[in-house]
């Protein structure tokens, strides 16, 4: 049964644009048009505000928690063209890095799998995306320009286990770093880090959407050779791209055409459930059946948690 654990009154002065729990599910970070990022400690049904971070000068679009092995680190991106990385120091949250090398709003950001190190990718409306790598005392950035014409809307990391190395053979060195991005040119692009040259190269361009791609999400790996990417778009469709790991071909499958623009896709931790949310204020959960069909588990009209009483 799906049940509400906690109902967090955020106290933001304006629309919330993102909310994410940390790795352990104990802390909630929210960001809003009121330019602030707030962090809550959620225990059971109660929550306490532990930080209200106000360094951004524009609406904050997205937040992302880093893996806890690097400490309590949160990144946020904003309309003000900045990415700010926050760290908890003692009980104080402080800005530890600010990245302002984009020419337009930074729309999305995603931490790399912890196996690669403390690395953050962020996508901007100037059409580029950046990869920020934490080194001993500083952050190195690499900006990949002209990734998408008009603008880059979403970025997501591939899990650290690349499909090629999960076929049962020996683990060949470190996993390849891959990133998937989606942009205003309606493409979903897969980028691969070429460790020889130290450059990000465009590996594949997936065509399927007919309007802006709003979000992409690479499904977490549980050791299967196949890779899955979900992408959603202004064209009200969600496409599931599947790569069986053998042929290397990404097969698109349209999940559904929705009533309104789809803004966000999110995979569960095991990668078997996809949460789809969009402009109509609704969330639907999708799961792949044993026959390989994607079926809708529930439509939640939000704000009415009672209607979400569904059993699997």
């Amino acid at each position: 049964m799906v049940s509400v654990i906690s109902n967090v009154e955020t106290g933001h002065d304006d629309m919330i644009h993102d909310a994410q729990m940390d790795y352990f599910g104990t802390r909630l970070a929210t960001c809003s048009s009121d330019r602030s990022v707030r962090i809550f400690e959620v225990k059971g049904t109660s929550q306490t505000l532990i930080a209200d971070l106000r360094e951004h000068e524009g609406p904050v679009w997205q937040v992302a928690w880093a893996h806890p092995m690097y400490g309590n680190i949160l990144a946020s991106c904003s309309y003000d063209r900045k990415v700010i990385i926050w760290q908890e120091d003692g009980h104080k949250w402080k800005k530890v890095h600010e990245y302002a090398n984009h020419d337009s709003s930074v729309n999305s950001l995603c931490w790399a799998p912890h196996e690669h190190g403390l690395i953050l990718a962020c996508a901007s409306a100037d059409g580029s995306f950046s990869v920020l790598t934490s080194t001993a005392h500083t952050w190195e950035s690499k900006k990949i320009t002209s990734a998408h014409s008009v603008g880059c809307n979403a970025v997501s990391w591939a899990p650290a286990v690349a499909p090629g190395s999960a076929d049962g053979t020996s683990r060949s060195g470190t996993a390849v770093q891959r990133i998937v991005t989606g942009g205003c040119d309606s493409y979903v692009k897969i980028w691969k880090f070429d460790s020889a040259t130290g450059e990000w190269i465009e590996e594949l361009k997936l065509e399927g959407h007919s309007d802006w791609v709003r979000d992409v999400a690479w499904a977490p790996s549980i050791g299967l050779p196949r890779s899955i990417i979900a992408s959603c778009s202004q064209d009200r469709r969600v496409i599931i791209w599947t790569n069986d790991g053998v042929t290397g071909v990404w097969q698109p499958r349209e999940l559904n055409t929705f009533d309104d623009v789809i803004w966000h896709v999110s995979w569960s931790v095991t990668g078997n459930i996809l949460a789809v949310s969009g402009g109509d204020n609704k969330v639907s959960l999708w799961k792949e059946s044993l026959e390989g069909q994607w079926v809708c588990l529930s439509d939640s009209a939000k704000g009415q948690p009672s209607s979400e009483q569904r059993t699997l």
Partner: protein
Amino acid sequence: MAVRWSSENVVAEHRDLQANAMALDWRGEYTLLAGRRNLALISLNKPSEVVKRVSRTRQKYDVTAAEWNPIQSQGHTFVLASGERAEICQWTEGSLNGTTSLRAHTRTITDLNWHRFDPHVLATCSIDTFVHIWDTRETRKPVASLSAIAGASQVKWNKLNHNFLASGHDCNIRVWDNRKTSQPAQYIAAHLSKIQGLDWSPNHENHLVTSSNDCTVKFFNITNPRKAENFINTLSPVWRARYTPFGEGVVTVVVPQLRRGENSLLLWSVTDMSAPVHTFVGHSDVVLEFEWRQNTNNPGEHQLVTWARDQSLRIWKIDQHLQRLCGHDIEDDAAFAESTDSEFANEAAPVQGESECDMEKFDEKDKTGEQDTLDPVQDTKQQCTQQNAENTERASHENSPEIGLATSDAPQTYDELQGSLTNDQFTGDTGTANVPVLPPVTSFLNTVSAPIRTNHNVVSLTSTLPSGGISAGQPMSLQQEFSLLNTSLDNSQVNSVEVVTEVEKRLCQVTAKHKNHTVCLNINFPLTYPRQHTPIFRFSYGTTIDISCKTDLLKVLKTTASQYQRKHKACLEPCIRVFVNHLKELLGDDRLNSIETPLGNGYSGQVYGSYQDHRVPFPRTSGARFSSAGLLVCFTRPMFMKKGSSRTESSTPRSLSALGAYIKNYMAQKSSTVPTSPKYSYIYPALSHSPSIEHSVSISHYYYQDKKFKSKRGKNEDEVGRSFNVGSVLIYDVKSLMPLSRDLGASYVLDENDIVGACLHNRDAAAAVGRRDLVQLWSLAAATTSLRPGLSINAWEYTDSPWILHPFARKLVNSILDHYVTMNDVQTVTMICCTFGMKMEPQNTTYARKGRAESNSHLLLDRFWRKHIPEYGSLKRNQRQTSVWAKLDRLSLLRGGKMGGSPYNTIHCLSLEGWDTCTVRHNRSNSEGSLSEATRPQEVDLPALESTDTHQKNLARFLDCNRGHQFDEMKRAYADILYRWGLLQQRAMVLKYLQVQPPAHKGVEFQTDCVHCGQSAKGPQCLYCRRFSFSCAICHVAVKGASNFCIVCGHGGHAYHLLEWFRDHDECPTGCGCDCIEEMDHLFR
């Protein structure tokens, strides 16, 4: 406000025509009405009579567009679009003849347009996304094809520049250059919905107006495609918006089909977008087409000819009053027309005809323009060198008296002018002020070699050029006036004034900024200025003051200008002064203060509305994210917020730029308290204000707020009010949807010694959480492992093949695994894998060192020493001996088979509640053989044991060894989830079953041996004797934090103490005789 009166008009009904399209010929004498069945020609002098009527036989398609050739030489030609074809027809001597048809489009043609200057060129556009350009003399295929992605709805040639045309595709405009057809010259993301109408300005080459289904009419300057210059909001989709041929007006028609109630035509003035200046009332159904004509009898009068679905043709008179409302000044116009004519006469080739030579004129003008622009560049180069030196002298000698007067009056000014206008050469050539006609433009402004020579002169001078200075005799030429322009203004009055003069266009642009307001004033100088006419003042786009202020300013300006004009004096400078002063007075007024909020300092992009908004995706206001393991975080809009109700399309806009437009819409409709003044002129009207004011822009404004929203619970009123715009964040537990369960994760056990027991335990655990499939699974697992041939391979007596090959063994397990893998159930898969898998021993097995007593804390370094330091033994004989002894001790323990004595057994140091595995296990292979093998002391080595292990494992393997790596990944994934759940011990347990252990820690690892019991201990407390394992050699207190050792003698203690000690000493503090500093030095060298 608009007065709705029915202006004097002519009505003629033609019910039988069923016409869809209407077109007027170039003179406005005939109108063509075209429908699916009929073509009819009507003389507008007798609009009720049909001059000629032709029936279109066997026509499948309606006529979608029709247009007469606008050029006199081909004025008898018109074109009709019907289906995929365009037909060119001629009206000659009373008969209508179809001549040619243009076929290239593959879908219905939506619009067509004749070239404004070339009578043979025609553009057509269609839903098939193409815009074709045709030459009517060669009709087999288009001269050029412009390809776009979306279907085209409109195509229009520029009315002033013969190279440009614009086409509307869905929500976007493409501006094309005829000479480069491969891609658009400009791309404007204009609207949020389909563009229905497009029209170029008759006055400005770069201006166009669009109308769209999104209920807006937008004015664009194609040089700035990011932002509309101006816009009109209506309540319904707009079918057409076209400029008026007079003044700066626009006529709009709402989209047919949708709003039957509103059939009115609206006339707007560009200067005030808040309300139409006139509404044409009369048509009982939607207006399909309208065109302009000049009244042949009364040249000053324009007429609007409309054709509506009510099948009536109406002619509306636009009298001078209406024209004036549109900013058309009859007198100015006359003056200006005169001046332009004479300008052409002077500059261009002789005028041949009235209208037919439009194009030639244009060409000529272009050419002369080019010459003008090219020559000076060359001139300048020469003149620069020659004349620079003599400039000053020549200027003073050769300048006309007026100039001479001016300069002598204010020599300082002149010098400064020279300085500020860096390269401005004031040569004798231009100083010939007596020449009444515009002298050839030469090196007057050689700073700019671009076609438009501008002279930026940001006013900062303090000295004055007395306006009375220009007093006597002939007026000076425009260049002189421009060059001498010295608007020495007190900067404290107005924030900034910028004056840009363009001699060639006889134009001066004044931009004044004061208290958040920008006022852009264009001053046009007729050729007859200043002798006969005053300049023409117009406010241009970007002006933020309201209409009453504008009127005030214009009045003052005109008065001033005419005063000077009467004396035939140049009036630019005094006008600018008056303008600035008056502006200051106006803006100082209280009525403007109310809407003025100082712009926030600092970051300019702090509010929405930057020019790049069109590429920023529309913000998410709701969403759901999986977080951690089994949580779904949802954030939503509050329930009372709905999408704006005025919106016509169903889906949410894609980019942030939509926000501004909607807010504007929303504000205009919802609220009368919106500041009225800056409402027009900017597409993001409220955006320039500080976000703190009430109408600051926020994404929440996009959503219609139920105004009845009130808290029913009084007690929560404050709270609700505070978070009015914010929904709450809901955290859902979606565990039930996940294949995993935390409860199971906590209660599952793995017990290598009692696999059956573990399976049964797990079965009970599964039953407890209600997973019946898992109950079944664990029962099966218990059943199949109970026959596991580990104890004796030969236990299976009935057949030679081992149990492992039985369908109920490996096959069963593997099919179960396959099933749960497809379900992404890593928990079950991992547990099965571990149950049937082999635990891998960590390589750095801890040594059991029972029975060994040491007085001091001890470092276990044997292996390290053996590997790296051969001379170790000689250094520390005693120590070495101890190690050897220890080894022997271990062997003896092993030989004796004492419990816990084997160095190769893992001791579980974890005291677990749920796991109960804190035992020292025996041999994992359960075979007697390994013990007997171990009796040979020399071969008690890891490899020997491993070989037996491998053998055993292969026999016992239920799992497919090829999938080992895959299962490892799953174990890691599950371990990660266990970590998220905080089940650290379970996680450690699972990780022990990894087939490929993570690479062992490379480098030296130190370990302490307990002071009391001699067991090697990790951490400060010995797990065996429960006492602190390690005390400081200096203070003899247990060490818990930072510590330091001598790796030679093994003594050490608190890092601070040792640091202090070794500051003064070299030898070990215990007195063991070790010269720690030197020994260490030696060691690492």
